């Protein structure tokens, strides 16, 4: 559905070149909710803006639904953009227009008749659950309601793709959840492909199928969300996952300060429910000291992480590690 090939973007800052995106390539499937996560300044906002050319890419190509976006002329680009909905962190609603008029705007631009606009906007208002806010101005809406208006507006032209630029970053956790539910419903019922930029791992965890980790303008890791939680490869990914638990952070655990062996255990699915560690202690002559741990609920499964210190003879520890591995626990010696 979306093919990004060797995309780069360079900003001129005085006489210096600043590469906000460096040689990014990825493929996003139809109907997928694809997350791009990174810290601020990682270049993710620039990346998503290159997809509909709100920012002009310096190099590379973006192919959406078979159309090479990067080669389009101005007029064709405008037509293509109508098939790419976009929502923003600060909603970007017109303050002088009512909910109804905001949602109607994209339809007005294509010269739809009053009747067509009316029936389409009414259907959208119902879809996002804002029928009662029809004639209200944005200043009287809550953050979550504003984003719902923005989502309805983005859907007005029946786009195939929805780009979300930090759409939940300005919202409280509960509202975030309801907006994510709505996006999820849009994918399931309308079959849209959704590309989401975020710095919140919770967003990725709750609704994304796959995720790309972005750092300094580069993609350092792309995987399914499950795989990311099971076996995070990059340091950034691990930091994001650790940020989910309020326990001791991994970087604060210095293996040199412990006598025993420090292990990072990852487990998921049914294993989460089994007393594996307890079994291990009974079976081998070792002691276990738990340093940090958490369980995250993913879309389809749960993933647990434990950081433990094992003390005992080397043979017993090795045997215990083998035992864990045999029971599908991912073990990493730190």
């Amino acid at each position, binding site marked *: 559905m979306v093919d990004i090939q060797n995309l780069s973007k360079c900003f001129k800052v005085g006489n210096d070149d600043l590469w906000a995106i460096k040689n990014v390539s990825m493929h996003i499937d139809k109907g997928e909710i694809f997350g791009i996560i990174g810290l601020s300044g990682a270049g993710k906002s620039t990346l998503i803006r290159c997809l*509909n050319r*709100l920012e002009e890419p310096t190099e590379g190509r973006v192919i959406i639904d078979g159309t090479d976006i990067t080669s389009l002329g101005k007029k064709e*680009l*405008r*037509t*293509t*953009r*109508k098939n*790419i909905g*976009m929502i*923003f962190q*600060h*909603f*970007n*609603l*017109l*303050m*002088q*227009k009512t909910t109804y008029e905001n949602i109607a*705007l*994209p339809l*007005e*631009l294509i010269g739809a008749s009053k009747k067509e606009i009316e029936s389409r906007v009414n259907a959208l208002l119902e879809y996002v659950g804002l029928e009662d806010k029809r004639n209200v*101005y*944005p*200043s009287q809406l809550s953050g979550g309601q504003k984003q719902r208006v923005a989502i309805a*507006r983005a859907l007005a*032209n029946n786009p195939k793709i929805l780009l979300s630029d930090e759409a939940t970053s300005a919202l409280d956790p509960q509202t975030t959840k309801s907006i994510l539910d709505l996006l999820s419903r849009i994918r399931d019922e309308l079959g849209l492909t959704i590309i989401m930029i975020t710095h919140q791992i919770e967003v990725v965890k709750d609704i994304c199928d796959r995720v790309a980790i972005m750092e300094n303008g580069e993609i350092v890791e792309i995987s399914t969300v499950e795989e990311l939680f099971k076996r995070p490869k990059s340091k950034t990914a691990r930091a994001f996952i650790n940020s989910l638990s309020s326990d001791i952070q991994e970087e604060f655990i210095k293996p040199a300060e412990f006598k025993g062996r420090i292990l990072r255990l990852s487990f998921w699915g049914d294993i989460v429910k089994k007393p594996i560690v307890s079994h291990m202690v009974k079976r081998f002559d070792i002691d276990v000291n738990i340093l940090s741990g958490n369980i995250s609920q993913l879309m389809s499964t749960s993933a647990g992480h434990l950081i433990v210190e094992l003390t005992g003879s080397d043979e017993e520890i090795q045997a215990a590690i083998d035992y864990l591995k045999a029971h599908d626990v991912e073990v990493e010696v730190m």
Partner: protein
Amino acid sequence: MLELLIPSLLQTLYMVFFSTLFSLILGFPMGILLVITEKGSIWEKPTLYRILDGIINILRSFPFLILMILLFPLSRLIVGKTIGTTATIVPLSIAAAPFVARVIESSLKEVDRGVIELGHSIGATVPQIIFKILIPEAMPSLIMGVTLTIINLIGYSAMAGAIGGGGLGDLAIRYGLYRFQTDVMVVSVIVIVLLVQGIQYTGNKLASKISKK
């Protein structure tokens, strides 16, 4: 007193009304052009921007009285004479147009960049962004700007009175100053003050009624 005051008031209203109208017709497009042609804006034309910016600055640097005298030939060309209320509308409009352009420019610039980006993202053309997004969003601020223009023009029109433009300014100078009829001067000034107060009040009310922020 009233038989002096009423015709002068009507002359002032006539001058101010038409010069506001014409200065808006001239200045509004200039203001829009300033905003859209600036670097990084929706219709980037740096050279056009610099030329426009320069012309507006030059026109605004002229003291109004001198500009008015310089524009006598133009008034003669358009209205057929250089003295009188109708003739004065020409220099008034031209003097106020660059002011209007700046006022419109600053109002439109207040519009949040996010909604312009939104315009691009839904495939709006440049005219659509201007007329469907920029102007409606800036409307309360534009109304304040027009109010400012009207009040400025009341001031200008009073000055224009001094060189044969008629109106309340003319009355104050001819009767009040030259003939030592202080009462006429005081009353004309009071009428001007009331006019300004009334227009400012109406402008404020209208802007806050329209504003949905």
